[in-house]
């Protein structure tokens, strides 16, 4: 599997994504600067966490207008896999690659802690390595992870099996405890928790490995 990681000004989990991908795939992903309008030929694009553009105005808003995002959209339209983590999820909703919006946490505070997630959907390139209903522990670290969409959209997401991860105990007020969703074509996943921080047993667990393994098996 060939992967690329997009780097915006003030992305800050780009290195973590690179390390995780390198560890899991055995080769370093391409790091793509936001001003580059061309994507290398890859199977997976990762939009990492961080504070692109300082999270000023709205998280992900300015990043969604970057030149590179046109290529990311084209990649997604062709069916290419896109994984947006944390700030990456926000960029994906701001780019309308995923429905809804991520609002300020209901508790109004940044929250960083390990959370238990339920894997709701294993019919995807990202989650086929998990068992349906499996509990996994990933860290969250965000101030605006409160997923919002209108009821019709939420019903549709649920009905189409696009809610992939749900919080066991909601840390941010997210609608229907949603932690991660798929696009209509199921090739784009946005999630607030950080799978790339749990591939290395020394720093908090290994529950994220299966996500990368699923991708490798599906996309290679």
């Amino acid at each position, binding site marked *: 599997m060939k992967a690329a990681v997009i780097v915006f000004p003030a992305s800050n989990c780009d290195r973590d994504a690179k390390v995780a991908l390198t560890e899991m795939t055995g080769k370093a992903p391409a790091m793509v600067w936001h001003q580059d309008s061309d994507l290398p030929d890859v199977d997976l694009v990762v939009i990492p966490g961080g504070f692109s553009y300082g999270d000023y105005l709205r998280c992900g808003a300015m990043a969604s*207008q970057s030149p590179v995002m046109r290529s990311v959209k084209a990649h997604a339209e062709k069916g290419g896999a896109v994984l947006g983590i944390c700030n990456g999820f926000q960029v994906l909703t701001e780019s309308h690659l995923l429905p*809804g919006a991520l609002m300020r946490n209901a508790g109004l505070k940044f929250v960083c802690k390990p959370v238990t997630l339920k894997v709701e959907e294993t019919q995807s390139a990202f989650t086929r390595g998990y068992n349906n209903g499996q509990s996994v522990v990933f860290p969250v670290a965000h101030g605006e992870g409160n997923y919002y969409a209108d009821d019709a959209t939420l019903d549709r997401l649920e009905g189409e099996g696009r809610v992939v991860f749900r919080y066991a105990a909601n840390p941010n007020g997210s609608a229907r405890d949603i932690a991660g969703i798929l696009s209509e074509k199921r090739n784009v996943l946005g999630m607030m928790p950080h799978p790339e921080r749990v591939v290395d047993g020394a720093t908090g667990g290994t529950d994220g490995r299966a996500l990368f393994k699923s991708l490798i098996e599906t996309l290679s």
Partner: protein
Amino acid sequence: MKARVFVTLKNGVLDPQGKAIGHALNGLGFPQVGEVRQGKLIELEIAGSDADKARADIKAMCEKLLANTVIEKYEIELK
């Protein structure tokens, strides 16, 4: 020209921050305060003197960047 853009959450979208402010004001001895909503105020300096063009441009800026129309609405004021 100077312009002000008001970006607020659409009706029906929950505003936890506004709610918290309202709650805090009530607790600070302002029981007369009812609903509170918090939004953004963006002040812009725009070169040129054609008000209609400025308004149209600002509308485009709002649609493109300043507001997230999934959850927010906006209002433009020129002066």
